[in-house]
């Protein structure tokens, strides 16, 4: 190796020049960046490195765990109770929606058998260090039967979706991440829409006409159209509706109902059985996103 900007005399053999090495490593990094950002082809490498790094990661928490051990037994009991409550919260969450649904007699029209829900309680270990995305790490992984694409809820509503699984942990992409989109409906009137993360802990209802019937305070629940989320899970509340006639779409800001940015326990819902395949049509040649959750960024209204 030779020092940048100071070429050694030619009789010292010190390998390629610094600029050559820089060009090599930069092009290698850029290749990796593009391969990961555009084609998502590096998951196997990530899995391998993450498996090796896991014991180290665990080791760094020892001091933090030791600090946590000071908590009293009452706090622990509290924790256990909350854990139990979370197991049943899943059913409670959907009850409100079912009542609404009965009121509108929709159940009479479409008596599709509701799928039974099972879930697995996971603890949110920490928020991922990456400041550009909203992800948390949970303490369940491939070994516990977690698969990418499963929905994650807490006792109030939806938190997000499992984005990556490692043997013992999994990454959950939060609803407030800019890459995350979730199909919802307005609980009051059943208006369907797509809710996307807007960063800074907020979300945005996209592609609704400026005169769409949405009010401040409306509760949005999952519509279940994507085959990932069960219908009727509370997601967000509308906090601001901006109807600017200069744009064809209304700008509707929503705040998540669940403790998306808080830590604690979460419930990873089991995978839904797949919806029946779409009938063939002209659009069938368009490539469908593999898990139906990562919606590519579209132009803002």
């Amino acid at each position, binding site marked *: *190796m*030779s*020092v*940048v*900007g*100071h070429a050694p005399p030619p009789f010292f053999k*010190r390998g390629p020049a*610094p600029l050559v*090495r*820089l060009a090599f*490593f*930069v092009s*290698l*990094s*850029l*290749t*990796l*960046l*593009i*391969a*990961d*950002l555009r084609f998502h082809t*590096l998951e196997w*490498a*990530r899995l391998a*490195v*993450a498996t090796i*790094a896991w014991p*180290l*990661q665990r*080791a*760094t*928490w020892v001091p*933090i765990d030791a600090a946590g051990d000071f908590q009293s037994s009452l706090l622990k009991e509290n924790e256990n109770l909350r854990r139990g409550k979370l197991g049943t919260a899943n059913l409670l969450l959907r009850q409100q929606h079912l009542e609404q649904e009965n009121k509108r007699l929709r159940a009479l029209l479409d008596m599709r058998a509701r799928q039974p829900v099972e879930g697995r309680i996971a603890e949110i*270990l*920490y*928020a*991922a*260090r*990456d*400041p*550009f*995305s*909203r*992800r948390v*790490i949970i303490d369940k992984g491939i070994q516990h039967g977690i698969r990418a694409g499963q929905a994650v809820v807490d006792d109030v509503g939806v938190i997000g979706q499992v984005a*990556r699984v490692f043997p013992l942990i999994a*990454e959950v992409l939060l609803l407030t*991440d*800019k*890459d995350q989109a979730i199909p919802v409906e307005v609980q009051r009137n059943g208006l369907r829409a797509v809710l996307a*993360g807007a*960063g*800074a802990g907020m979300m945005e209802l996209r592609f609704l006409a400026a005169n769409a019937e949405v009010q401040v305070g409306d509760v949005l629940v999952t519509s279940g159209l994507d085959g990932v989320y069960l219908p009727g899970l509370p997601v967000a509340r509308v906090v601001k509706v901006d109807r600017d006639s200069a744009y064809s779409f209304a700008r509707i800001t929503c705040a998540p109902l669940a403790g998306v940015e808080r830590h604690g326990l979460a419930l990873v819902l089991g995978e839904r059985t797949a919806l029946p395949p779409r009938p063939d049509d002209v659009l069938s040649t368009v490539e469908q996103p593999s898990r139906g959750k990562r919606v590519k*960024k579209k132009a803002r209204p």
Partner: protein
Amino acid sequence: MQPTHSSRRILLPVRNWFIALTLFLALLLNLIPFGRLPGIPDWVALVLAFWCVHQPLKVGMAAGFALGLAMDVVDASVMGQHALAYVLLAFAAAGLSRRVLWFPLAQQALHVLPLFLGMQLVMLAARMLGGAEFPGVLWFLSSFTAALLWHPVTYLLLIPQFRPEDKDVHRPI
């Protein structure tokens, strides 16, 4: 080798295993989950920049690339983001190494601060082009804490190289 070029103190030669150990410990420090707390320095970048300035023949872009890949995985960020930033940081720090050691430590910190900020800008550009959200201005605070830590880190990492203090009257070095 001296702590700074204007110092009269002569250092022992550095041991390779010590460089590897400190880089590894910095990686461990980076694994501590602080979440989105602003102002936590990037320890790997700090230690890497230090060794690139002090030992540019031993630590360089290859080390930066390898450490960057490890950080990309444990950080849940995009593969290549830290690798690219660390490679550029190592290049810039090595380019600075002949000059910056003439300055006292406080001014050295001022020299490396733009390097850390540049590294963060590279990461920002890589991710914003990929459509990620802006992490907020406070995120850049970690560069400033890293620059503030330059002084203590210099002493910490040079401890094994300091000669014993006992003076030899016959060999006044």
